[in-house]
């Protein structure tokens, strides 16, 4: 079966060089009402505290419970968390101080802001940092950094039964302490400590674990009485309002940590009751049968840490040790140094004790950090965003060769870098499981193989890949279905060294992204030629927008660059209330226009010459393109027969397949597939968004028919009014097409026209694959149950993609159907069979291998936050369409709550004051709060329905890096580039790399200039007090006021300041499929809202600030 399916498609070399052209639309202008917020109005009274409308509030727990049951789509069930707090968000903030601040008169606020050093602050709250600072000072600690407090709280709390850093630092090869019945709780805690800190040098393997446990349990007891009472004098620092101004360097070296304060002490007292005495503890241990017996202390003292390591490695069934062993030994040594004296000198002075303890904590958290498993208290860490691009978590398989061979994360990415062993473990972690794939990404180095037989598994048809097992030189075992297959003779031959023998030298086995040139079995028909048909809307609205001029001129200049070979064909149809066909018959001196008025029953006016060979008819086509823009200037037809035009193009291309490009400027109101305007402009700001669903099934039906004939339909919307993208998008979604949207398009607007032109250019010249299918296979035990993207799922795992383009991304949700406990790793393999524009059938194969683990902590620490966000946003789009928008919004919040709750449960943290997140998920709440304010999911802010629907479509199809940039744009300060770090670009030039700032007005300084990179668009905002050096040398203007409102490019000046900025912008553009459009504006420009509405962390009238969002999460995380 699979083979027959595969044969439907074929393809050719992707012969095109990876062009940097193309894509992606249109985030550009949005009109959405700017009443909203000017994040930094320092003067002017502001309504001190405006309540947020009820519908904007995150759900209370009641709805959450219902909701998360509904949420089964998201793979997150409600089993773990009983949530009870019925409080509404606005009232339940634990931090009274925040509220106080907010109700302060505005003027006071301004003062306090100013007093804090000129940086502007977010609107929503206020900074009364001074009081906190004084607290700190009283503590007698020299630390001036409030951010420290987070660590200060965490660290001591280990001892109080909230063991987070301990478990955190658990070496990965330690046997999982997976969720345990409550009775064993106390037991497991000390055991965990032993794992990390264990001095434990033993020559025999068994006793080593127990010994340190003794220490651990004793230590707190010893320390207890020594505690100096006056540490109690200071009230613990309350949860900091995020507004509290943090010095920019948040995370300080651990060695500067403060010593325990009252918090810690409380924990100690509790702990005294909770921990069993060492003796009891030992007994328990024995009883529990989890660990070997305890032996005498002397064993412990005599042995060396070094001896311990290998033994430990054996002890635990380590599948994939993630954390390097040397860390362990290092840590152990350090710890030994501390504990031994502790044991020997039971009567220690109090100060010493403190040092012991704190330095040990420092060591722990230091190593946690080294392993990337440290955690953060979000409420204490407002500057959570790393200064450079967020790193992609690496997949570690315990074998460097295999790790190296794994698929690049920008092509294939999973929401976790380690797969849970069974479904219940996955449910406990509350993380969504799925993969994101960008299969046709432009690649620089792609091994292409031509061979007679492509080696595949005989039963599951998996392509051979680096993760198969070679049983001997003649046999291999499939890593997906575990069947043993023969290896063909040919495979023994190594084309590189031209020798026979070792099959592991073949490129198929060395790299997991590879392309095969497919032999004829993979073709059902001869590979199709590149065929392009253009449908041009020429209704009145379209003519007025002037898009035709742009399209025709770009097309004219790129005609020779269209991917294809000598067989390439093109055709044109223009449509208003009638269809205008253009015939390029032999012997005509100019194109012949034929108008068909009967649009209800479409027919083709002549059987051929509508689609013609481009090279043969180049002159006629150029002629037509020159005439078209002005040909219909006098037409006043308002209707647009899009449906009929699509039907006609289906008829034209049904026998060949190809690509239809539609330019639509107005709502199709006539003929088949006619639509009526469903949007009520007065409801744009409402919380209940309707009409996200298609109005009829015409476009979907037609798309499926097209898909069957290998026709893909792409649409450019250049509309000035509602065009019902929700309905029309069906034609792209199910035919594997793509969509671009230019709202309120007018060719006379330079920036719009420029971005339209760029998009179109990239679109026309980028690589394209025809008659494609993609199949995703995964290891036995896993099932892919939901697909996201533009395609038609023809059978369970086969996606039919009439066209594939390099800017299309896909997502899949995966479920674990069977236990994976008998395997060490699982694989996903995506195979894309396509016909290149040169008429060559090719197969591109990507394989990703992930380790399987059985430890909840490890799973949570292996989460890939960006990928999770990518998948969640796709799921949320589905949910808003099937249910409604507010469900989707609530689902987002529930996911955050669930994940944080499960982390807390897994760490057994008990009641901590903060909102703890593991390192790998620290940006999740930030991204989720940004998503709730994104165009797709915001509510209460005036958003055109089309913009919203388009944003949702983007979420489904954008590759992950673009998506993240759309959700949370990068903000760079560019006024002081000479002071910044530099990095080298591909040409070995030094590029200044300013730190990425969080999107909050507190980071916007009135004497700065900032670049915001939103993916397809960049904005440089120049604040009023910027230095004249910057204005003169970088922007080439004399003063601030002479920056025009229409500045769309950065002048090239002959000085290094200007060149630095150019380097930076070029560097940022290098990673994109096409250069972003640039706009430079003053902070008083009428367009500034484009910039300021992206300051997503600040509170706006209708949505919570990031900090408020965290506070809400905190009340819900139990």
């Amino acid at each position, binding site marked *: 079966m699979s083979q027959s399916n595969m044969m439907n498609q074929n393809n050719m070399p992707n012969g095109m060089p990876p062009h940097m052209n193309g894509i992606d639309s249109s985030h550009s202008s949005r009109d959405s009402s700017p009443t909203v917020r000017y994040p930094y109005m320092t003067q002017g009274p502001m309504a001190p505290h405006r309540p947020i409308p009820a519908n904007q509030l995150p759900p209370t727990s009641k709805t959450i419970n219902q909701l998360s049951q509904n949420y089964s*789509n998201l793979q997150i069930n409600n089993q773990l968390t009983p949530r009870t707090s019925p409080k509404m968000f606005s009232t339940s903030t634990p931090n009274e101080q925040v509220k106080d601040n907010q109700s302060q008169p505005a003027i006071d606020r301004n003062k306090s802001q100013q007093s804090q050093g000129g940086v502007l602050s977010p609107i929503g709250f206020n900074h009364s940092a001074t009081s906190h600072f004084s607290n700190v000072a009283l503590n007698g600690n020299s630390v001036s950094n409030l951010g420290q407090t987070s660590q200060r709280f965490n660290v001591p709390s280990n001892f109080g039964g909230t063991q987070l850093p301990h478990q955190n630092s658990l070496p990965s090869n330690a046997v999982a302490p997976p969720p345990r019945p409550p009775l064993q709780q106390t037991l497991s805690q000390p055991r965990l400590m032993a794992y990390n800190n264990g001095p434990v040098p033993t020559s025999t393997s068994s006793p080593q674990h127990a010994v340190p446990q003794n220490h651990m349990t004793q230590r707190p007891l010893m320390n207890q009485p020594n505690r100096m009472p006056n540490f109690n004098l200071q009230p613990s620092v309350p949860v900091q309002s995020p507004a509290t101004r943090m010095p920019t360097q948040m995370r300080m070296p651990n060695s500067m940590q403060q010593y325990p304060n009252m918090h810690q002490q409380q924990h100690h007292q509790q702990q005294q009751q909770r921990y069993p005495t060492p003796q009891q503890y030992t007994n328990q241990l024995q009883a529990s049968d989890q660990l070997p017996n305890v032996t005498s202390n002397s064993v412990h003292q005599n042995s060396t840490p070094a001896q311990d390591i290998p033994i430990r490695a054996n002890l635990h069934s380590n599948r994939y040790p993630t954390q390097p062993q040397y860390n362990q030994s290092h840590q152990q040594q350090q710890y030994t140094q501390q504990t031994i004296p502790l044991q020997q000198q039971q009567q220690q002075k109090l100060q010493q004790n403190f040092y012991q303890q704190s330095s040990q904590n420092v060591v722990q958290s230091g190593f946690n950090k080294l392993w990337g498993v440290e955690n953060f208290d979000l409420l204490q860490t407002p500057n959570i965003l790393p200064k450079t691009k967020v790193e992609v978590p690496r997949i570690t398989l315990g074998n460097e060769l295999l790790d190296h061979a794994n698929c690049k994360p920008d092509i294939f990415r999973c929401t976790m870098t380690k797969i849970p062993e069974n479904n219940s473990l996955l449910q406990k972690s509350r993380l969504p499981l799925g993969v994101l794939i960008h299969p046709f990404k432009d690649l620089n180095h792609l091994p292409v193989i031509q061979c007679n037989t492509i080696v595949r598994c005989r039963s599951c048809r998996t392509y051979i890949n680096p993760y198969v097992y070679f049983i001997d030189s003649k046999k291999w075992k499939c890593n997906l279905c575990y069947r043993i297959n023969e290896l063909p003779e040919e495979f023994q031959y190594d084309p590189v060294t031209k020798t026979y023998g070792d099959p592991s030298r073949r490129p198929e086995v060395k790299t997991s992204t590879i392309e095969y040139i497919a032999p004829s079995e993979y073709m059902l028909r001869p590979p199709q030629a590149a065929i392009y048909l253009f449908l041009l809307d020429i209704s009145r609205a379209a003519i007025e927008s002037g898009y035709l001029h742009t399209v025709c001129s770009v097309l004219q200049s790129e005609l020779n660059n269209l991917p294809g070979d000598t067989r390439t064909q093109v055709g044109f149809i223009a449509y208003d209330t009638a269809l205008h066909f253009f015939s390029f018959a032999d012997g005509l001196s100019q194109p012949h226009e034929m108008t068909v008025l009967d649009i209800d029953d479409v027919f083709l006016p002549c059987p051929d010459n509508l689609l013609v060979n481009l090279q043969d008819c180049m002159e006629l086509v150029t002629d037509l393109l020159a005439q078209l823009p002005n040909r219909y200037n006098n037409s006043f037809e308002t209707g647009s027969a899009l449906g009929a035009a699509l039907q006609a193009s289906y008829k034209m291309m049904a026998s060949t397949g190809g690509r239809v490009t539609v330019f639509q400027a107005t709502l199709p109101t006539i003929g088949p597939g006619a639509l009526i305007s469903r949007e009520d402009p007065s409801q744009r700001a409402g919380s209940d968004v309707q009409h996200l*669903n*298609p109005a009829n*099934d015409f476009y979907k039906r037609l798309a*499926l028919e097209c898909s069957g004939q290998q026709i893909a339909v792409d649409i450019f919307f250049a509309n000035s009014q509602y065009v019902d993208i929700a309905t029309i998008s069906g034609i792209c979604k199910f035919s594997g097409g793509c969509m671009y949207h230019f709202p309120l398009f007018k060719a006379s607007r330079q920036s719009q026209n420029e971005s339209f032109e760029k998009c179109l250019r990239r679109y026309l010249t980028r690589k394209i694959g025809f008659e494609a299918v993609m199949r995703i296979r995964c290891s036995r035990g896993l099932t892919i149950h939901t697909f996201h993207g533009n395609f038609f*799922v023809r*059978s*369970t795992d086969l996606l039919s993609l009439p066209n594939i383009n390099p800017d299309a991304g896909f997502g899949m949700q995966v479920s674990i159907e069977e236990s994976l406990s008998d395997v060490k790793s699982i694989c996903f393999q995506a195979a894309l069979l396509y016909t290149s524009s040169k008429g060559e059938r090719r197969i591109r194969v990507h394989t990703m291998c992930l380790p399987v683990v059985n430890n909840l902590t490890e799973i949570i620490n292996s989460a890939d936050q960006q990928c999770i966000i990518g998948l969640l946003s796709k799921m949320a789009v589905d949910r808003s369409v099937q249910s409604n928008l507010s469900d989707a919004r609530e689902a987002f919040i529930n996911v955050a709550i669930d994940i944080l709750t499960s982390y807390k449960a897994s760490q057994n943290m008990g009641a901590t004051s903060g909102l703890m997140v593991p390192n790998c998920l620290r940006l999740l709440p930030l991204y989720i709060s940004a998503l709730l304010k994104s165009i797709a999911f915001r509510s209460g802010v005036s958003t055109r329905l089309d913009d919203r629907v388009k944003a949702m479509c983007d979420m489904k199809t954008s590759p992950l890096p673009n998506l993240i940039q759309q959700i949370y744009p990068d903000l760079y300060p560019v006024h002081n580039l000479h002071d910044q770090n530099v990095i080298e670009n591909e040409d070995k030039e030094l590029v200044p790399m300013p730190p990425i700032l969080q999107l909050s007005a507190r980071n916007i300084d009135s004497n700065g200039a900032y670049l915001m990179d939103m993916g397809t668009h960049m904005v440089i905002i120049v604040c009023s007090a910027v230095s004249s050096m910057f204005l003169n040398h970088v922007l080439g203007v004399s003063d601030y006021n002479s920056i025009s409102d229409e500045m769309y490019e950065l002048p090239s000046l002959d000085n290094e300041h200007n060149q630095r900025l150019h380097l930076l912008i070029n560097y940022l553009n290098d990673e994109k499929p096409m250069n972003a459009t640039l706009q430079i504006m003053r902070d008083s420009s009428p367009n500034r809202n484009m910039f300021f509405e992206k300051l997503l962390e600040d509170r706006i009238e209708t949505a919570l600030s990031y900090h408020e969002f965290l506070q809400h999460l905190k009340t819900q995380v139990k």
Partner: protein
Amino acid sequence: MFLSDPLLFAFSLIVSGLILFLQIYYVIILTDLESDYLNAQECCSKLNVWVKPKLGIHLFLTFLLLIHGHWILSLINLPIAAWMLYDIIKTPCGNMGVYDPTEIHSRGQLKRHLRDCMIFIGYYMIFFFGYLYCMIVSLLEGDPINRDDEGLMEF
């Protein structure tokens, strides 16, 4: 009213038998889809054709039972009719029917449809035998063999 009871039940028997066969056809098609013998488009177009006739014939039967005064039977028939009606009504207007080829593979819809079909089969199976019983009872009610007379004659 129009039909004698035995005739009515015989008709019901035939109708529920037909629907039963239709459901079995559904299951076959869906399992074919599951095992890739059929593509989603064909499958859905085959299934969608029968959704409304099935509901129509079921409603007709319910109505027939009602006007013949078998209100308990028709009441028992109502929930299932309501379920079918609900399935049709809640289908979003952009979908191509209760079974939509673009969605049938996602979010476990296929499994849900199969489960629904099984429930229907069980339900119609029970009704099939229920009608059979009712038919026999109603046939016997009229005492068609005239045993009483015979008895009288004998004794």
